[in-house]
């Protein structure tokens, strides 16, 4: 694997990009990080992801892998000699895929309403968001990680959202520690991992970024 060329097309606040950063760090894979300006997408990005034109894109020896959860599975399958990200038992793998998919289907849109809208729409977003986190807390139960004793696929799919929590709390006027204490405890546990701490941006930096976005979308 020493001659592998690995490039990550990414955007620093993207919770989806964070998934790949964490996965590559867990596997100790050396890669080149390329920051994309989403208002001015590079020819490389448009060539590597012509269908969706989105980040993150993993480029492995010139071949693109798009869609973050798919790319994390790919990383797990290629660099299989260390830090397994998916469980080995078929039923546990199915549960991991189910919950990673749930996060994609439910969490992003409701979270977006918290910082990106006002009034009734924002309230609806807040309610859905807390509900989602509560469902996820139910799934986590008393386990240290969603993967059980081992940090894995679902933890990776979810933890990036934590870097946006200060923004959600500020603009949504909510306290996640009060509403979802288990979730916050789990997140802090994950943050103690090197791979996570190095992959997530500072929450204040994200807040500043959201402030600019809100002005741009006329929410302020």
């Amino acid at each position, binding site marked *: 694997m020493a001659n592998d060329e690995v490039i990550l097309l990414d955007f620093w606040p993207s919770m989806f990009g964070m998934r790949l950063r964490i996965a590559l760090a867990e596997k100790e894979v050396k890669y080149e990080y390329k920051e994309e300006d989403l208002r001015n997408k590079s020819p490389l990005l448009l060539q590597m992801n012509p*269908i969706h034109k989105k980040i993150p894109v993993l480029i492995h020896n010139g071949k693109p*892998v798009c869609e973050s959860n*798919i790319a994390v*599975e790919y990383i797990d399958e*290629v660099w299989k000699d260390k830090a397994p990200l998916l469980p080995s038992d078929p*039923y546990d*793998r*199915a549960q991991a*895929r189910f919950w990673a*998919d749930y996060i994609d289907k439910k969490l992003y849109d409701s979270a977006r309403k918290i910082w990106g809208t006002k009034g009734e729409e924002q309230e609806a977003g807040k309610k859905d968001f807390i509900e989602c986190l509560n469902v996820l807390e139910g799934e986590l139960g008393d386990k240290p990680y969603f993967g059980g004793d081992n940090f894995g696929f679902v933890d990776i799919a979810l933890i990036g959202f934590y870097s946006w929590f200060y923004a959600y709390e500020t603009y949504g006027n909510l306290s996640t520690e009060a509403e979802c204490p288990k979730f916050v405890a789990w997140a802090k546990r994950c943050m103690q991992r090197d791979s996570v701490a190095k992959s997530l941006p500072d929450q204040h930096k994200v807040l500043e970024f959201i402030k600019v976005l809100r002005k741009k979308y006329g929410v302020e």
Partner: protein
Amino acid sequence: MATGSVKLLGVWASPFVNRVEIALKMKSVEPEFILETTLNKSELLLKSNPVYKKIPVLLHDEKPICESLVILQYIDDSWPNGPSILPSDPYDRAIARFWASYIDEKWYPLVVEFMKAEGKEEKAAVLEKISEGNLLLEEAFIKINKGNSFFGGDRIGYLDIVLGSLLGWVKAIEMMDEMKILDETKMPSLAEWDKRFCSDNVVKDIIPQPEKLAEIHRKFHQMKKATSN
């Protein structure tokens, strides 16, 4: 070889249920089919899929697995001795998963939007978007099949099941609206693939005929109208 009871909660008209039926048949596994009626969800369904309350649900040794794409991969993992559903190469697997996601999240929702759209103009606008998607799928097929009959090679695989399962309903909608969604002139390779897929031994008794689906659709809407008045 996995043992234990295998039950499938579903309805024969659901393309997502058909996917699971095809995958199990590929592995020579015969499930106990538990019929769900779409108007009143059973206790078993609500208990097995509390998050989405939807079919299909596969119950393997009474343990539920939900979401058709998750179920297909579970079947492949659990019965490794039968023919493979997903490709063996990690990159090919990533490509198969990518297109499955595209089909379920972008392409098929447009087909449903087309069905629900009212008036020729609205339908034509949605059809244009679907046609763009069709071209992408045609290109993807040519790239992925590497000269073989199916997405999966010389035998049906994951993507064949994911896309093929939807074709019954696509054709039923074409019948009901008297408009072509799958244009053979614009997607000739997929048109040929469609015929091969539908006549494949594993598939042919599972995907219902479009005429039957159109009839079900009519009946379902009549029932809905009657109960809402």
